[in-house]
């Protein structure tokens, strides 16, 4: 499927839309929502228990764009010719060791499971990014939604007053390679995309409107709408319009969720001064408010030259931000219902090139799952002594996505109807990695 660029609400000058256009898009999306839902007949109704189970589940995806090195993070090979200069360190889970660049996560390994045996085969950025955001290869006949859109659909609420899918991607490199794709789910599940700003500019009320004016206008509209409804038989169109309007108002009211100045300074200090840290804090605020899916992209890990210098900068930042995020979620009682994922389009070659870089490598790399529905401390799969191939427990994109869906209480075999075509969440025959599921 050729990826299409969804409407997005980001503040970048590349695709800024004016406020009226923005609100119109939201309204259109909300109106289209009902139509989408009638078209997307769920063929295989999930069991009631499972349906209940996924209520309140949330996901934060830490997207390591450009491809972080598994050897410098989750699958170190110290002493091997391919191992690089970093040592491995013990973790809070006996027998599990990770890179010395991640001491904070080592102390929290009991909250995280590592899958060390991804073999995803696509080694170019664009193809790899789409594959790992969609869980399957493009299909020219179907516009597949990505993980965020599916989870927004599965975990979000129709009457939600907060965004369902928010994505942060501030660096420009690779931003267009995995932009967030609602596919056949429709624009209702397109991401709210933030690039250069932490707060979405288009959510802000116009400066020329006073708060009291804004409130009074909304109350007047409500009054007129109620009178209109009372005097006439209810129509689907009006109901849909009201839903859309309420959603827009909810989204506008959610502006404060993006404002980390509302957090105590001590909390902001914990996350640190980096953009990645600040965006992770916003992600926590969004999750806490009920946003089902937030992607925080940290770009750009594509270390063809000076791999070890690059990872010396970026892995400690990942270690810090991920550890604080897990702590914060746990302290707030959110971690048991929030799945934190680290994922990229691929990993990096075991071979070290002349520029002391590592190149693209999709044959044997790692991802992690922490929190909701997974066994903390579990390590699944194994690569060989030099990290060149998977020797045990190979996992492909479909198996990874099935595992994520199952961890969230979503039946990975569930099917949508796209026109007359049944489309399963994951390809037929896919099995989740049950060994990492709680």
């Amino acid at each position, binding site marked *: 499927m050729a990826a299409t660029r969804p409407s997005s609400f980001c503040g970048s000058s590349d695709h800024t839309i004016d406020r009226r256009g923005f609100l119109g898009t939201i309204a259109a999306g909300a109106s289209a929502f009902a139509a989408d839902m009638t078209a997307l007949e769920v063929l295989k109704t999930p069991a009631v228990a499972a349906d209940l189970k996924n209520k309140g589940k949330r996901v934060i995806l830490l997207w390591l764009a450009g491809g972080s090195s598994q050897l410098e993070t989750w699958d170190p090979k110290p002493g091997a010719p391919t191992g690089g*200069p970093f040592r491995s360190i013990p973790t809070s889970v006996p027998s599990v060791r990770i890179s010395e660049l991640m001491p904070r996560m080592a102390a929290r390994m009991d909250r995280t499971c590592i899958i060390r045996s991804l073999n995803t085969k696509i080694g170019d950025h664009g193809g790899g990014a789409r594959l790992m955001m969609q869980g399957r290869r493009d299909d020219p006949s179907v516009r597949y939604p990505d993980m965020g859109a599916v989870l927004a659909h599965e975990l979000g609420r129709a009457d939600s007053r907060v965004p369902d899918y928010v994505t942060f991607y501030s660096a420009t490199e690779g931003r267009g390679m995995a932009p967030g794709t609602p596919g056949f789910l429709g624009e209702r599940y397109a991401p709210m995309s933030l690039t250069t700003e932490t707060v979405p500019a288009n959510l802000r009320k116009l400066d020329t409107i006073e708060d009291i004016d804004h409130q009074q206008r909304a109350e007047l509209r409500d009054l007129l709408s109620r009178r209109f409804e009372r005097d006439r038989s209810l129509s689907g169109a009006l109901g849909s319009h009201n839903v859309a309007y309420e959603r827009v108002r909810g989204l506008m009211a959610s502006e404060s969720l993006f404002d980390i100045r509302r957090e105590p300074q001590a909390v902001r200090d914990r996350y640190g001064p980096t953009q990645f840290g600040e965006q992770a804090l916003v992600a926590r605020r969004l999750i806490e408010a009920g946003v089902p899916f937030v992607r925080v992209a*940290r770009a750009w890990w594509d270390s063809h030259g000076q791999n070890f210098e690059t990872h010396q900068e970026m892995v400690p930042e990942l270690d810090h931000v991920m550890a604080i995020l897990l702590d914060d979620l746990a302290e707030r009682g959110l971690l048991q219902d929030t799945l934190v994922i680290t994922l990229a389009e691929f990993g990096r070659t075991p071979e070290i090139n*002349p520029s002391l870089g590592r190149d693209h490598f999709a044959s044997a790399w790692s991802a992690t799952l922490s929190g909701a529905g997974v066994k903390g401390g579990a390590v699944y799969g194994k690569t060989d002594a030099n990290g060149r191939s998977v020797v045990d427990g190979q996992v492909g994109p479909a198996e990874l996505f099935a595992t994520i869906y199952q961890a969230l209480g979503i039946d990975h075999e569930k099917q949508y109807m796209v026109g007359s075509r049944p489309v399963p969440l994951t390809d037929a025959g896919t099995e989740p990695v049950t060994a990492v599921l709680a």
Partner: protein
Amino acid sequence: MSAPSAEKVKVVKQLARPEIVFAAARRKGTSLLYFGGSDFRVHAVDLGRDRPEARELGAHSSYVTGLAVAGGSLVSGGYDGRLNWWDLSSGSQIRSLEAHAKWIRRIAASPDGRLIASVADDMVCRLWDAETGALRSELRGHEEMTPHHFPSMLYACAFSEDGQHLATGDKVGRVNLWSVEDGCSVARLETPTFYTWDPVQRRHSIGGIRALAFSPDGSRLAIGGIGQIGNIDHLDSKPRIEVFDWRAGRRIGEAQGEGRGMVEHLVFHPRGEWLMGAGGYSDGLLLFCESDGTKALAQAKMPMYVHDMVLNDDLSGAVAVGHHKIAAVNWSA
């Protein structure tokens, strides 16, 4: 004698190596080369033999990145933060010290062989008594973090020929000059071109000062690395050398090589006839410049990315070490 032309630079001997070789040292008047690299080991090899075979002296617990001969000892430094002393006669280890809390990037011996300088990512330069291993002084003047909240690195150090001064260079392009006698800072240079921070596309950094060398008279300091990089995924800029009148704090020359690459090692001709940088991108390079850095004179290819180099005693060539190879080159024929 002028700088050799690129055509005159000939590779006369090559040894394939399983490891990446980061450091080399040679005892004057011998054909013995000591080298160390990504296999954590320190080796010796007699390049005067028809079929040289490397002999292992011992090992660190991480990459070996610095070697220097001082008196009757070889000193090695590594990413394990240790300095190891080896007896040149017997090849046995004399002592091993925990010298730094982070990676040792480079070591240098003073010209009289009495001191060893080590620089590491703890951003400290330490001076050691080469004979006893005693710590003589600690030189602190490089920031631990970059302006963008990432750990910085202290890559390079070099003694002046008279042994009175020492230069240290870090990732963000700061050079500190020190009085060896009392450990005081005597000058500071800023060379921001060597450091690229990409705030928009990729949001990390690359570069740094990778090589330093004093001119034979001690008045000039050459600084090597790579220029500003557009795409920091790669070493995507020209190899770069700047030369300073360091006492005046004035840059007197800058020279860039052709193509892409990083300068990892610098050496002045002992009579000041040229300044040479060695490094690479995918292949290696030798870049000869005017000794005041005002002009690049010639650039030759090397069979591998070069991390370190030692000149022949008669200045007829050099031995370079790097990516899975050791190569002897000659430019006097």
